[in-house]
């Protein structure tokens, strides 16, 4: 493949992604139980419900898939992701505990507070995974370890949710299953700031990330400060995963499936291309999953995580089988 061909592939892929993204935004705006005939109410619904929800799905989907890509780079393995490593569940647990605790005292929690709590939880899970990774060299074992951490966190979350008695618990329950609904413009502003900042930092890390893909030794020999780089990767992936969990609850498989699809599409793993591609692809993936979640059995909504699992898990399975075959 010569240089020109490669560049053409990248340009076409990015145009296609942008078109897909824009198309999904439009469809998501149009589709729903209320249409133009509702007059002013329609405008209200578009502005107050659908648009924030679309922005949330786009940004958080992108953030999640980017978090997956960072973790895959960090562990040098394509089956790493915030969900399978238990990072999302850790965030979920701490957010639930914080919410229940504060609700008891009658204090409502701000968006920033939610992110902070989720980040704390993500870092706790991350800490366990990093400890485990010093002993377990094999990635499959590490993933099993992550799944276990995930189960423990989910069990504890379910436990506290069941026994917390408050009218707001209904919200908490919905949230703990995963959903893009109920976003306020205030939420959107906060997540936009956090996600945009994290995205920019990722772009700035794209060069050392590329070197790191050749292995730690080569990256160091080319002048990458490995310690700083690894800390940056851990913090960024935790912040991204925590932000998603804080606002939309745990969402499965996006973090593995989307980066994989993007690599297949671009036929490269270069971070400078993959970071924006994963972001746009993750956004598009979650927009379409959310569309399905809220329309297929309308007015009943599916949890976003079940939809992403239905579409994401087969991609991951296929990837693992193909890798095994070499």
């Amino acid at each position, binding site marked *: *493949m*010569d*240089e020109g061909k490669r560049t053409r592939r990248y340009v076409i892929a990015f145009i296609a992604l942008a078109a897909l993204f824009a198309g999904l935004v439009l469809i998501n705006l149009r589709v729903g139980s209320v249409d133009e005939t509702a007059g002013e109410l329609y405008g209200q619904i578009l502005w107050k419900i659908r648009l924030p929800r679309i922005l949330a799905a786009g940004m958080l989907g992108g953030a999640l898939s980017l978090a997956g890509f960072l973790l895959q780079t960090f562990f040098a393995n*394509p089956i790493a992701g915030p969900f399978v490593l238990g990072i999302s569940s850790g965030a979920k647990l701490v957010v639930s505990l914080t919410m229940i605790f504060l609700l008891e005292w009658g204090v409502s929690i701000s968006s920033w507070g939610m992110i902070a709590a989720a980040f704390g939880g993500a870092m706790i899970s991350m800490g366990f995974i990093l400890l485990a990774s010093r002993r377990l060299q094999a990635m499959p074992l590490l993933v099993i370890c992550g799944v276990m951490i995930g189960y423990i966190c989910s069990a504890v979350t379910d436990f506290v949710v069941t026994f917390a008695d408050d009218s707001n618990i209904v919200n908490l329950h919905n949230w703990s299953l995963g959903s893009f609904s109920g976003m306020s413009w205030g939420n959107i502003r906060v997540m936009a700031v956090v996600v945009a900042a994290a995205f920019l930092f990722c*772009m*700035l890390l*794209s*060069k050392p990330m*590329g*070197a790191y*893909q*050749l*292995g730690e*030794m*080569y990256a*160091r*020999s*080319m*002048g*990458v*400060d490995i310690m700083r780089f690894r800390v940056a990767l851990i913090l960024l992936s935790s912040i991204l995963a925590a932000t998603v969990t804080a606002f939309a609850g745990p969402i499965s498989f996006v973090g593995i499936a989307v980066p994989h699809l993007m*690599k297949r599409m671009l*036929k*490269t*793993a*270069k971070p*400078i291309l993959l970071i924006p591609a994963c972001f746009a692809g993750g956004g598009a993936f979650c927009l379409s999953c959310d569309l399905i979640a809220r329309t297929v059995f309308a007015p009943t909504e599916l949890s976003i995580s079940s939809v992403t699992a239905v579409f994401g898990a087969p991609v991951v399975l296929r990837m693992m089988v193909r890798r095994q075959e070499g």
Partner: protein
Amino acid sequence: MADSYLFTEHMAVGYGRAILIDDISIRVARGEIVTLIGPNGAGKSTILKSMIRQLALMGGRVVLDKDDMAALDGRAVAKKMSVLMTDRTQPELMTCFDVVAAGRYPYTGRFGVLSGEDRRRVRESLALVHALELEAADFSRISDGQRQRVLLARAICQEPEVIVLDEPTSFLDIRHKLELLSILKEMVRERRVAVIMSLHELDLAQRISDTVVCVCENHIDRVGEPEDIFTDDYIRRLYGVKRGGYHADFGCPELETAAGEPQTFVIGGGGSGISCYRRLQRKGVPFFAGVLHTNDIDYAVAKYLAVQIIDTPPFEPIGEETYERARACMHLCKTVYCTLEDFGSMNEANRRLMEEAREMEILREPCAAGRI
């Protein structure tokens, strides 16, 4: 030696807190190849990893181009030194071009975008290792030999003044071993690059190195030119060889000699005996070799394979006393092989031995040697 480009002063290396080797002084000048040899686990890789800052020094310092490496930042080091280590790297979806282009890291900007000049350098490096046709190939799908060449191209592409290599030829077949080392030699000769590497292949180390550093458990045992290092006895001692030996002149290992009282005599000379010796050794048959001039090629081989050699000084006809010695040995034997077809005045005695063996009816065809 003020002209050393890379050198260590009282360097101590090891893992964790345990010092493995202390007080190491290794010097590499530009246009020179320094090779580390020594038994497995002696610490060759540890020394190299410490010199390239992959391992923290436990003492002393490493000086690169007059600067203490501890004070240099990563980029400055990367512009002067590149490496090819044994870490297996399996990057996803990277073409060989991408892998080599990684070597441009210290020269590209914030986002690592390659300039036209960078691309030219990448192609040039690929061409230098004869791997230009692999440019677009997936790095994870090429052979070991190709992979090693591409990784060398990556190291070259970094425009280093010194290249550090850890066992670059392991797992390569003979053709690729030679190719890789030839490319290194070219780099050294034409670009005055300094090379320091570890090698397992003593024969290659002997031929390519300007200086050889012998690493033995817990110390640097010797540093010198290959001619001083590669002697049979020293190599045996360095590696603690207990069975078999090392043939320094030929640069090849020899298996143990068959032990026991020889009942076989081989009359050889001028290279004709070698295949017969080998056949006998393979079958575990102890034998006498004779009568050989000490400058005969057969003598050099028989030294390792025969239980006893009946030898005679070079350039002189075989003396009567030597002939008698050989006869005495031959009379202990049940089988005699003569690999010589022509005899001259120098080895007239061998012809007499052969004729006597024929009369005794113990002379056999040499090609049947070992078939008992």
